[in-house]
């Protein structure tokens, strides 16, 4: 066993985790930044294609209050207004700070330039490069975090459980992937920055490590989640023909720059049927487009692959080249000529609005436990605007790091092995149990496959009470089944041990999403019920989810947090 000590442990090294580590270090804390994948390579940030919203006002008048008004409108009444205001106000500081760090925001006439994105009232979405903002941002933060002398970066360190002793965080338990050694970490504060839950869905657009770890870790530590019924489906994820080496979200920047048109399989534009705008206007918010495509699918008006056509055929080749030169060549290598062919697109799980319930200092209800980035719920309500996720990672990461450092610095370590024992016992029992090699070698893989299909079919874009209830029953059975399953008898890089822990998180998170979706008997934002098609003014409330004594997820309601703190 390995034992480490630090002031602040950051779990997850995407945009939020790296910013949290930088901020905690510059506020005087020793930090361990751990990722079960590799530092800055996993998570969602590196996958970001383009837009980062901030009301800089450099090109034309803008204000964070306008950005806030747009964010609240998109959130369909459910935003925690304090968190939304923090996001919009401090996005400006973080974008400027990243500019000082030479991330390379695109400029026009010397000024940082922004594009218009659906749901925004001002062109405020800054970017580095049309398809490369995420990798550029990840690289910039990786450099900064490497310069922070009190940050120890550890790749391949999977954190399974936060240790809570007498109601207070004392550290965490995990294991080193390379050699399966259990690791305990004494830490006065733990920041969960483990990202979202997109891997729970068959069609998804994020890294494989976005499997709900953060939500499940928070629940097991005794913290609350909110708004779990609201995973966001990106409407025009690439479907066909097969593309390799490209992010399925890639058509978003194409639409910002070139418009493009959506047609169903019968060649009709259809968004007007669902309250959206057709032709080349890319103005309709994500929830409405996803709903529209899914309804067209139900009506039998989608392609044999189940998608709709996105067409840039009306745009001359020189314009396409001027906008996306090298990408046009990459598409050609994949057999796609946009002047001659449409591409097929369909909704794809992309982001999660819900998450860990925190206050403006990113603190949960458990002293010493913080959240940062996508894993935090509340700032985006029932539907997130494009461009709000990357600033959320920066802003909430910076705050979590700063406030966690202030809390942890100079505090006495109160680690005791006894409080970590139940987590270590579980890990050791999984490591020591021999697998039955005569049995099904892919049992854990097949469980992932079943869960992803179940969530897609029954807890996806269009929901009914019947489908949701069937899903909840099956998820609970799968949790029982998993408890009896064993990883393979490998020591180095034991993928099945990781599968086991990933599934433990995924199933608990899936139960939270499904239960919350059953309880919300209306349609609002990204949560669309076929048996309750209207928005219900009586359901302007948030759902809180907690883990009950018996291990089942419990829910109740909270009034929406209104009003913006000064």
């Amino acid at each position, binding site marked *: 066993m390995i034992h480490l000590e630090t002031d602040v442990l950051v779990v997850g090294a995407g945009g939020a985790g790296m910013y949290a580590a930088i901020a905690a270090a510059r506020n005087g804390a020793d930090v361990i930044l751990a990722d079960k994948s590799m530092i800055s390579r996993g998570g969602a940030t590196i996958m970001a294609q383009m837009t980062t919203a901030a009301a800089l006002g450099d090109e034309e008048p803008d204000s964070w209050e306008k950005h806030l008004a747009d964010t609240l409108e998109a959130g369909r009444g459910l935003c925690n207004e304090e968190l939304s205001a923090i996001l919009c106000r401090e996005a400006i500081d973080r974008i400027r700070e990243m500019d000082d760090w030479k991330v390379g925001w695109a400029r026009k006439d010397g000024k940082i330039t922004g594009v218009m994105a659906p749901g925004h009232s001002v062109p405020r979405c800054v970017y580095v490069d049309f398809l490369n903002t995420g990798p550029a941002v990840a690289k910039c933060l990786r450099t900064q975090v490497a310069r922070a002398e009190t940050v120890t970066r550890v790749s391949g360190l999977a954190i399974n459980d936060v240790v809570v002793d007498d109601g207070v965080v004392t550290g965490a338990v995990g294991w080193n992937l390379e050699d399966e050694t259990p690791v305990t970490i004494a830490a006065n504060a733990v920041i969960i920055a483990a990202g979202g839950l997109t891997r729970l869905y068959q069609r998804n657009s994020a890294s*494989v490590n976005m499997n709900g770890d953060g939500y499940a870790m928070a629940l097991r530590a005794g913290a609350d989640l909110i708004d779990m019924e609201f995973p966001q489906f990106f409407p025009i994820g690439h479907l066909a023909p097969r593309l390799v080496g490209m992010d399925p979200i890639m058509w978003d920047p194409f639409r910002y720059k070139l418009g493009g048109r959506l047609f169903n399989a019968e060649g009709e534009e259809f968004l007007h049927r669902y309250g959206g705008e057709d032709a080349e206007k890319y103005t309709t918010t994500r929830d409405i487009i996803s709903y529209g495509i899914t309804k067209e699918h139900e009506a039998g008006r989608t392609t044999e692959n189940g998608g709709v056509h996105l067409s840039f055929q009306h745009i001359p080749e020189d314009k396409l080249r001027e906008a996306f030169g090298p990408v046009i060549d990459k598409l050609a290598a994949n057999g796609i000529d946009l002047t001659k062919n449409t591409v097929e697109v369909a909704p794809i799980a992309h982001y999660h609005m819900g998450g860990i319930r925190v206050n403006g200092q990113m603190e949960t209800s458990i002293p010493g436990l913080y959240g940062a980035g996508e894993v935090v719920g509340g700032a985006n309500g029932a539907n997130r605007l494009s461009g709000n996720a990357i600033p959320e990672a920066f802003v909430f990461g910076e705050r979590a790091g700063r406030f966690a450092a202030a809390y942890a610095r100079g505090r006495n370590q109160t680690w005791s092995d006894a409080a970590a024992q139940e987590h270590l016992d579980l890990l050791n029992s999984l490591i020591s149990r021999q697998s039955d090699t005569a049995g099904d070698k892919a049992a854990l893989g097949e469980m992932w496959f079943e869960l992803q299909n179940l969530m897609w079919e029954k807890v996806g874009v269009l929901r009914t009470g019947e489908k949701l209830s069937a899903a909840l029953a099956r998820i609970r059975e799968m949790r029982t089944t998993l408890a009896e399953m064993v990883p393979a008898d490998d020591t180095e890089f034991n993928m099945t041990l990781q599968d086991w822990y990933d599934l433990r998180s995924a199933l608990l998170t899936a139960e939270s999403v499904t239960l919350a979706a059953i309880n919300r008997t209306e349609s609002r934002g990204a949560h669309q019920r076929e048996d309750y098609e209207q928005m219900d003014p009586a359901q302007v409330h948030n759902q809180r989810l907690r883990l009950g004594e018996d291990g089942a997820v419990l829910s109740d309601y909270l009034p929406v947090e209104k009003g913006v703190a000064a």
Partner: protein
Amino acid sequence: MSAPVTNSDKTAPITIQRGAPGEDPWKETYDVPWRPGMSVLDAIVWVRTHADSSVAFRYSCVNANACKECMVAVNGKTVYACTERLAEDGTEVGPITNKTLIRDLVTDIVPPKENLRTILAERAKD
């Protein structure tokens, strides 16, 4: 609305080198359902999902060529599994050879400063 459909029940063989340091490496061949344009990464993910979940493999961003973690040797040449197409008539995949083998297709590509064992060894020296 699901992944692109295929009407054929054709499969393509993928041969994966298995084993950890100190073991004699061995090869296992899996017949993977063939879809036009599929990547080597798709095939390895299929193997882990439906045939043998214990195949060790490092990847994160899933076919986007953003994380750069999925480097393997395909027919002896170092490539990213996510951008290399699966051959219909057989593909051999092994670990890249210029990095220390950890197990199966996983090699030590983590920067030394981010490796827990290296960090602990450095601390022990101080």
